[in-house]
């Protein structure tokens, strides 16, 4: 078990496209780090650079104390789980797991012992003689995991390993991966575009956008204090409401907004953020420091445990979303007033999108 | 399309390519270059001296009515074989594509002439149409036609066209069938709902959607008729009677053989190469782009 350190890592492709622009990440030994971001944000490239499948254009990648920039993938002591599993289709499950050990000249009895141990942990012992095509998606996923854990590597790398599974299985495997990682305590780097997966798995969450790190931290810290409008809208579903506001008298000013006293907006205006789940229906007066929003309901989605209410706010033409608990009896066309308390408000710079308060 | 990840290796890839490249250069490029080179020389009757004559071999060739005749022969032969083998194969493929019983068995039976050597195909047909003892020939003569491919150029051409077509049907059949089966059923069903009757459906929907296959086969068949039919012509007619079935390729062979005119033969080879390169270029231009509907 070793730490993984990325120091100003850059990737420039032959055509001049800069896929990764100077990324610093520190994954403590034994931690589970998740790289999350939209497609094309450079997260997979970053993972493949750690694996040694892409060359590193600039900066340094260290595993443990070792600089690995110039090492072959096989020499880095890593194991990887691929999105499509990349199982060798012509080999049995056993051989798939044993192949890497055989290439390293591990003695036969030890290979056998390790493969059987991994199979036991992953509950795939009955399938050891089968070919991958005779397995279900979830079983293939386990074999791919098994291939990684038999090697007892310093680092596990996961490249969107759950995206080929159906929704139910994905949740189940997500929990298992987390348990397994805890049990083995192997440093892991996990790439996904699914913010829910990222939130649930990560010890260290890295949100990436356009080849740069937007924010690094514990998942809940990032949820509570997103560093930019990008992070605010990427983490959390449905995404945070972002409303352009002007500077009022020590409060934000926009059509349909009330309250918000004490939230200082700079003279040039700003973007006000509030998560849908922090909006509550109010009937009476809104406290001065809370933010009140009144909008006509345009659509209601009741999913049982909660209700999503949509409606346009002010002159922006933008929809606001409120996530209300239980069954909210609201008819489309009627106006509704909702409010969020002061600690749930976020303020971002209008130009850069960076967090400016509170 | 390129691989994302490759192996390192300085000498290994060259070592892997070496056998193929060596054989290619020694037996393809070197002779091709020699053909070009030789086409500028005239060899004396004893093969002892060579004289550089620039384009004389070519001008002699183009002044020779025999060469034009063989061009016309090639053209007629190509058009007939291509047309018949494509249309007959398409007809069979359309039938076999229908959901009928034993479609698989029909397919198997229609497939195997592909494995018959052209020369053998020629012999099989010759055996049926040989004027004095061929079964079919006798039937034709009994009808009052003076069938004799050994004397009548038209009859000889008919015979080689039949043999060449017969040999090629299975290849075309397979590709047409694959092409038909790759047309989404929903498109045909949509056309049916739009009120198109089966015949109209074929010509307005299926045939246009099949055009990439048809085009591919067209080129493949032309190349086939040019080169692979050598065995058929050699075994059935030997280019005769009176050169009535001498195609360009057959002429390269027979001129080089009988006349010992290597320069002239080389010039013909060069012209053929240019032709094939042209055909192949067209083929890949369109296949890469995929003929669109």
């Amino acid at each position, binding site marked *: 078990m070793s730490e993984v350190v990325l120091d100003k890592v850059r990737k420039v492709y032959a055509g001049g496209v800069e896929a990764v622009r100077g990324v610093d990440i520190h994954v403590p030994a034994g931690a589970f780090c998740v790289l999350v971001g939209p497609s094309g944000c450079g997260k997979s490239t970053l993972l493949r650079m750690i694996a040694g499948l892409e060359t590193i254009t600039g900066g340094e990648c260290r595993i443990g104390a070792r600089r690995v920039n110039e090492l072959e993938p*096989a020499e880095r002591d890593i194991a990887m789980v*691929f999105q499509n599993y990349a199982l060798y289709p012509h080999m049995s499950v056993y051989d798939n797991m044993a192949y890497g050990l055989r290439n390293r000249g591990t003695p036969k009895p030890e290979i056998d012992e390790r493969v059987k141990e991994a199979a036991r942990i992953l509950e795939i012992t009955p399938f050891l003689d089968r070919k991958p095509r005779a397995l279900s998606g979830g079983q293939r996923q386990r074999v791919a995991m098994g291939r990684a854990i038999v090697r007892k590597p310093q680092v596990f790398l996961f490249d969107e390993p759950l995206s080929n599974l159906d929704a139910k299985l994905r949740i189940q495997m997500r929990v298992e991966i987390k348990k397994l990682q805890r049990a083995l305590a192997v440093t892991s780097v996990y790439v996904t575009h699914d913010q829910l997966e990222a939130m649930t798995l990560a010890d260290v969450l890295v949100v990436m956008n356009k080849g740069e790190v937007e924010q690094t931290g514990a998942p809940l810290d990032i949820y509570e204090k997103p560093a930019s409008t990008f992070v605010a809208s990427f983490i959390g579903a449905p995404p945070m409401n972002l409303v352009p506001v002007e500077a009022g008298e020590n409060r934000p000013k926009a059509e349909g907004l009330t309250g918000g006293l004490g939230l200082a907006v700079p003279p040039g205006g700003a973007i006000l953020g509030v998560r849908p789940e922090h909006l509550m229906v109010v009937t009476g007066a809104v406290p001065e420091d809370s933010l009140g929003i009144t909008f006509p309901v345009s659509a209601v989605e009741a999913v049982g445990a909660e209700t999503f209410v949509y409606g346009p706010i002010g002159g922006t033409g933008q929809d606001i979303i409120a996530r209300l608990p239980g069954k909210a009896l609201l008819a489309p066309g009627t106006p509704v007033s909702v409010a969020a308390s002061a600690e749930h408000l976020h303020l971002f710079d209008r130009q850069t999108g960076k967090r400016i308060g509170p | 399309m390129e691989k994302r990840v490759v192996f390192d290796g300085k000498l290994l890839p060259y070592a892997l390519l070496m*056998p*193929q490249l060596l054989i290619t250069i020694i037996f393809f490029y070197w*002779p091709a270059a020699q053909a070009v080179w030789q086409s500028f020389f005239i060899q004396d009757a004893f093969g002892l001296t060579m004289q550089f004559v620039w384009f004389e071999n070519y001008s002699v060739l183009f002044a020779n009515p025999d060469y034009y005749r063989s061009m016309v022969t090639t053209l007629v032969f190509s058009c007939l074989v291509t047309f018949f083998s494509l249309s007959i194969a398409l007809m069979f493929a359309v*039938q076999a594509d229908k959901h009928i*019983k034993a479609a698989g068995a029909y397919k198997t039976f229609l497939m195997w002439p592909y494995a018959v050597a052209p020369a053998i195909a020629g012999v099989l047909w010759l055996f049926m149409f040989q004027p004095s003892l061929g079964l079919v020939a006798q039937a034709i003569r009994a009808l009052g036609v003076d069938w004799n491919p050994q004397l009548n150029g038209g009859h000889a051409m008919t015979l080689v066209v039949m043999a060449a077509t017969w040999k090629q049907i299975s290849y075309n059949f397979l590709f047409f069938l694959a092409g038909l089966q790759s047309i989404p059923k929903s498109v045909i069903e949509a056309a049916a709902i739009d009120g198109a009757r089966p015949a109209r459906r074929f010509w307005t929907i299926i045939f246009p959607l099949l055009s990439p296959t048809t085009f591919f086969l067209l080129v493949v068949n032309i190349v086939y008729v040019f080169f692979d039919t050598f065995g058929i012509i050699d075994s059935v007619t030997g280019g005769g009677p009176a050169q009535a079935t001498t195609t360009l390729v057959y002429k390269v062979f027979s001129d080089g053989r009988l006349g010992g005119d290597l320069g002239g033969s080389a010039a013909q080879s060069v012209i053929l190469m240019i032709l094939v390169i042209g055909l192949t270029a067209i083929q890949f231009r369109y296949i890469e782009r995929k003929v669109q509907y």
Partner: protein
Amino acid sequence: MVERQSLFSFLPHVILLIGIFIVAFPVYVAFVASTWDPATISNGQMPLWPGPHLVENYTQTLFQGTAKSSREPVGMMMLNSLIMALTIAIGKIAISIISAFAIVYFRFPFRMAAFWVIFVTLMLPVEVRIYPTYKIVADLGLLDSYLGLTVPLIASATATLLFRQFFMTVPDELVEASKIDGASAMQFFKDTLLPLSITSIAALFVIQFIYGWNQYLWPLLITTRESMGRPDGVADRHGDRRAGHAAAGAGGDPDAAALRQGPGRDREVRQFR
């Protein structure tokens, strides 16, 4: 399907049966002829059903040769064809799969140049460069040898292209997984790529075997027992043979002619003329 059941549902069967008849009839006629004695055939009275001479004709042609023409037994020729076809098919596959491997899985200077050098040979069928190629084989002293017969036909742009296409469809992740599993390039080739290519290899083997077995012009030139080392010399031989052409497949030796059913045996054909 959107076909309605109609009175014409038998039509496809009729058309396909006609197709099978066209395809099968010439071969059937040849088979029937191979079961009759020469006299029956040469007087043009051969019936459409098999005769009594089947075993006799085949054993003679396969193992003894025909007395009249003092010809070699066909069995021997078939063995020759088999050796040639096998060598060509295996050779083509072997050199094509490694060159495709080099082109797809390595980056090296002149990679595309090498690809095009191989690719362009698609445009140079043996027929168009027949005499110069013959001359080179003669210069190398390879006439009348299996080497001369097969090696020039072994280079294959088609097989290289097919393997390249196939390798392109092999997921990149398998290479990556192999690299992480510590496999070298040749280990990847042997342990993963080759087993995955088995179906392609099998399909290609059939096609290339037929190609090798059906070779006609090339063996015609290369196997000259009285090799003179000059194309026109070889050609003279062919000229002689052609003298009896009018009787081809017929007057000369109906038994042998009748035997040419099934997959082709080029050299017999020219022998029997």
